[in-house]
């Protein structure tokens, strides 16, 4: 028995011993394996009564209970509104009688002359209520024990909101009330005490002012107050959104609850039941096994979320609480749609995170221990974003969890804007991909299967042998890390906006090298991936170089027209102020020498982005997708990155960037090397920079007319001819797997090696 290939004739075999002729699993895509795997996962999950309890019983019981509780609290609040709000201690009956008449007089004066000074609570909607009844509804006077009570203690212990002592005047005054002096003791730490104080002050001042004004007008009928004011009270829309503000958090907890049990059961549960070994012994890639589990967890999570939403809506509808909970509009289709969007994105993200955590656990208990901190971590930012002033903007749009909570909040209040929302959704999906890659790495690995070693340490374990290919998981990890790091470094760079433009360009170039070249190189070194073969750094024949030089120099007119087309479609979302800001930046950059611009934004950016997108990401994608599909996906990701992450990001950048990205990826696929794309990218960027620098001169030559937005037809035709011709040339002279890939000689078997 020798050689590395199959040796079916090496030994006689009886009938019935030959295995079934089955399609090679290596060639089987996930779509082939999915029906079998998902059927098993869903059957196993949905038949489990614990899942059903979480899925159905919890919402059916929880929401009516919550609704009843809410009603009970509401009724309790309305009952308390019928009782006096403030308790005032007063020692003698005479003092109480006088204070009552003084407050009633003040109340009457306020109502007649300054009704806008009354608070919502004081302005009783009942028009038949007398001032005496109004005071009685707000104030309850009590007599403290003893003849000489300790007034400070009474207030400090909050037994009374105020203690008032009265010294009555002996001389009768021309006023609605007999004169007197009051001594008020209030508590500085009690909001109610302070409100009671304001209530008494307002009425006494009204009485005094009215009395003075009456006396003065008696002397001079035309007298007026020197300052007259009118007040308007408007309810705040920022301080509290009530239950609506709490909705993102409730939604999050609902969604997470559904996924927790299936995630544990389908990963740690496989280990605990000793079914993992037979499962990973199947000729199916582990990433397929894990993805089927992800779909199962996602399905249950989504079902839980939707069933909870239905139960919540039904409870709210039956108890007629729509306006109380969701504002004037109540439960609208838009609101329900927003709810569904948030649920789906939450579910996509959380299912992946849950699987990443539970995949490293060897038992239910261990998985539960890991998930408790996750739940706490989920609740904390949920509470933080309820505070006023938090909106989905800037770096918050890419912070996991917080971005989705803020997006949920903004969607509910109808204030979500497209760009940060897109950033939040795309970054969340990338984090989900990263978490899935992590889970695939942990699930069923050597240590977990054998139980011989730790688990999380294996995550950082380097493979024993050198690799020549980038795994999809490594590519996803790199992409997921790129987004937050880019935002972080660009945020830092923006703080240095006062610096010279030259310095900013150089710093930007350093960041570009770090993120787009050093980051993937570091990840490859960590995983023992040999960079040259993995990134496909290979020499190609001269014809490809000629083609990419022409493409690099000749593509810009088409890209420029694509930008104009995007604008004409109305896909521009920059505000006028932001456009002004971008124009100022561009104006400042005109002072920078062109060679420096070309070096930083042309050469360094071109080479670095090619390293990341075509050398690292594309080759990772090619491990799971067909070459042309990988090129399209890589191009779209390249476009999305420029939409979301670029300084001054706009949607109008997507189509041109994605188109350029697809062409660059396709060139890398067809030539089998990352190098031609690098040259094309550098030439494309540099030609755009040179054109921008010499725009004035070119306008004079009628090449780029400032008044005429579109380029001359001759230029466009020439560009289209160059691009079409070159792409056709590359297509004709290459294959789908790259024409310059050398034919590998098979490694001889051990027993075939020369002795």
């Amino acid at each position, binding site marked *: 028995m020798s050689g590395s*290939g199959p040796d079916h004739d090496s030994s006689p075999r009886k009938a019935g011993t030959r295995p079934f002729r089955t399609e090679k699993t290596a060639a089987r895509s996930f779509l082939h394996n999915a029906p079998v795997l998902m059927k098993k996962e869903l059957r*196993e999950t949905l038949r489990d009564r614990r899942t059903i309890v979480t899925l159905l019983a919890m919402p059916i019981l929880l929401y009516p209970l919550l609704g009843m509780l809410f009603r009970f609290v509401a009724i309790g609040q309305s009952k308390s509104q019928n009782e006096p709000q403030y308790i005032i201690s007063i020692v003698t009956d005479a003092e109480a009688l006088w204070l009552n008449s003084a407050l009633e007089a003040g109340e009457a004066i306020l109502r007649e002359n300054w009704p806008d000074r009354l608070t919502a609570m004081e302005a009783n909607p009942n028009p038949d209520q007398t001032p005496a009844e109004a005071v009685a509804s707000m104030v309850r006077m009590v007599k403290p024990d003893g003849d000489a009570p300790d007034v400070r203690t009474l207030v400090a212990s909050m037994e009374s909101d105020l203690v008032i002592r009265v010294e009555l005047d002996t001389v009768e005054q021309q006023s609605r009330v007999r004169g007197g002096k009051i001594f008020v003791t209030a508590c500085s730490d009690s909001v109610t005490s302070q409100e009671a104080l304001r209530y008494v002050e307002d009425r006494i001042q009204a009485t005094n002012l009215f009395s003075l004004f009456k006396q003065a007008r008696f002397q001079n009928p035309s007298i007026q107050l020197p300052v007259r004011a009118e007040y308007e009270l408007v309810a705040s829309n920022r301080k509290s959104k009530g239950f609506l503000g709490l909705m993102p958090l409730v939604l999050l907890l609902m969604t997470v609850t559904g996924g927790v049990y299936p995630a544990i059961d389908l990963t740690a549960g496989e280990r605990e039941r000793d079914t993992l070994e037979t499962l990973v012994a199947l000729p199916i890639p582990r990433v397929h096994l894990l993805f089927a589990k992800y779909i199962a967890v996602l399905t249950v999570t989504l079902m839980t979320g939707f069933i909870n939403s239905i139960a919540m809506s039904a409870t709210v509808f039956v108890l007629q609480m729509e306006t109380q909970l969701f504002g004037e509009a109540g439960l609208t289709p838009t609101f329900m749609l927003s709810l569904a969007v948030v649920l789906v994105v939450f579910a996509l993200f959380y299912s992946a995170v849950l699987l990443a955590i539970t995949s490293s656990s060897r038992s239910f208990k261990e998985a539960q221990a890991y998930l408790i901190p996750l739940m706490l971590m989920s609740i904390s930012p949920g509470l933080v974003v309820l505070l006023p002033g938090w909106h989905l903007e800037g770096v918050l749009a890419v912070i996991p969890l917080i971005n989705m909570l803020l997006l949920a909040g903004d969607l509910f209040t109808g204030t979500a804007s497209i760009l940060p929302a897109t950033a939040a959704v795309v970054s969340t999906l990338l984090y989900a991909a990263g978490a899935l890659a992590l889970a695939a790495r942990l699930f069923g690995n050597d240590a977990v299967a054998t139980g011989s070693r730790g688990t999380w340490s294996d995550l950082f374990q380097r493979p024993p042998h050198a690799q020549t290919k980038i795994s999809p998981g490594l590519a996803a990890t790199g992409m997921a890390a790129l987004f937050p790091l880019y935002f972080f470094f660009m945020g830092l760079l923006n703080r240095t906006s006062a610096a010279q433009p030259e310095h900013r360009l150089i710093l930007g170039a350093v960041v570009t090298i770090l993120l787009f070249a050093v980051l993937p190189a570091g990840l490859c070194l960590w995983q023992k991936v040999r960079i040259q073969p993995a990134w496909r750094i290979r020499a190609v024949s001269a014809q490809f170089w000629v083609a990419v030089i022409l493409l690099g120099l000749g593509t810009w007119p088409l890209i420029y027209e694509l930008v104009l087309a995007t604008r004409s479609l109305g896909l521009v979302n920059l505000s006028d102020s932001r456009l002004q800001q971008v124009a100022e930046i561009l104006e400042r950059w005109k002072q920078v020498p062109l060679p420096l611009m070309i070096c930083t934004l042309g050469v360094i950016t071109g080479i670095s982005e090619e390293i990341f997108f075509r050398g690292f990401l594309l080759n990772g994608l090619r491990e799971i997708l067909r070459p042309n599909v990988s090129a399209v996906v890589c191009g779209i990701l390249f476009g999305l990155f420029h939409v979301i992450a670029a300084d001054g990001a706009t949607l109008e950048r997507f189509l041109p960037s994605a188109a350029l990205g697809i062409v660059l990826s396709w060139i890398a696929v067809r030539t089998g090397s990352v190098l031609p794309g690098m040259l094309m990218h550098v030439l494309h960027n540099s030609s755009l920079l040179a054109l921008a620098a010499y725009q004035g001169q070119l306008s004079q030559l009628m090449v780029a007319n400032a008044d005429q937005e579109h380029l001359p037809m001759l230029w466009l035709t020439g560009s289209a001819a160059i691009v079409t011709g070159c792409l056709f040339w590359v297509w004709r002279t290459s294959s789908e797997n790259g024409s310059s890939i050398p034919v590998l000689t098979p490694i001889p078997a051990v027993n075939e090696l020369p002795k």
Partner: protein
Amino acid sequence: MISVQQLTRQFGDGPDAVLAVDHLSFEVPPGEVYGLLGPNGAGKTTTLRMVLGLLTPTSGDVEILGYRVSEHADEVKRQIGLVSASAGLYQWLTPREILEFFAGGYGLDPEQVQHQVERLADLMDLRRFLDRRSATLSTGQKQRVNLARALVHDPPVVLLDEPTRGLDVVGSQVVFDFVNTLRSEGKAIVVCTHQLDEAERLCDRFGLLFRGRLRYEGTLQDLREQTQRATIVEMFLDLLRSPQPVEVSA
């Protein structure tokens, strides 16, 4: 059919390193039952996991029908049926659903799946509980489902890891009958066990594994001549008392 070549597996590095399997080589032709015997911790299960491609060897390789596990791991998995005493069943699925799942996982088309389920239901006497939830089955019934699961893709190679552990006399007899059937079908079989008396009844040839190394290999007659002992139990007791490693002699 099975060729294990200088298989070695070390766990950990430095002073804590454990050499679980140390340059192990053996071959199993079709129709032979090979007993890989050894006390607990001898490296039997680690060897089986490397043969299956679940564990990467530190060095060495395994060939199954000419497919190297280091290069064609999935093809190797397709040729092997695994029976493990510790293997559990999916408690919410019925034996029929479990067999259908594994048959589909090995890439059988729906017609083949149904044919195999019916054949194994008769062969392993599963009819009475084929559509009952697995959680309700007895230990013996579960083991029969496990044996059927290993054969669902009709593999030419079968690995059995402690197949009679936890079974009573009747259950063990089912396993013996199972192994005899496989032998008569010309399958290459490796049985790992530390129940040496049972191994004597089951196996055609033996490899005595101790601290990761193959100490003796051959038929029972060969081993008796080499060790001057009548039973495998006595041979092992000698090994356990021996301070020095004994070189393989076959």
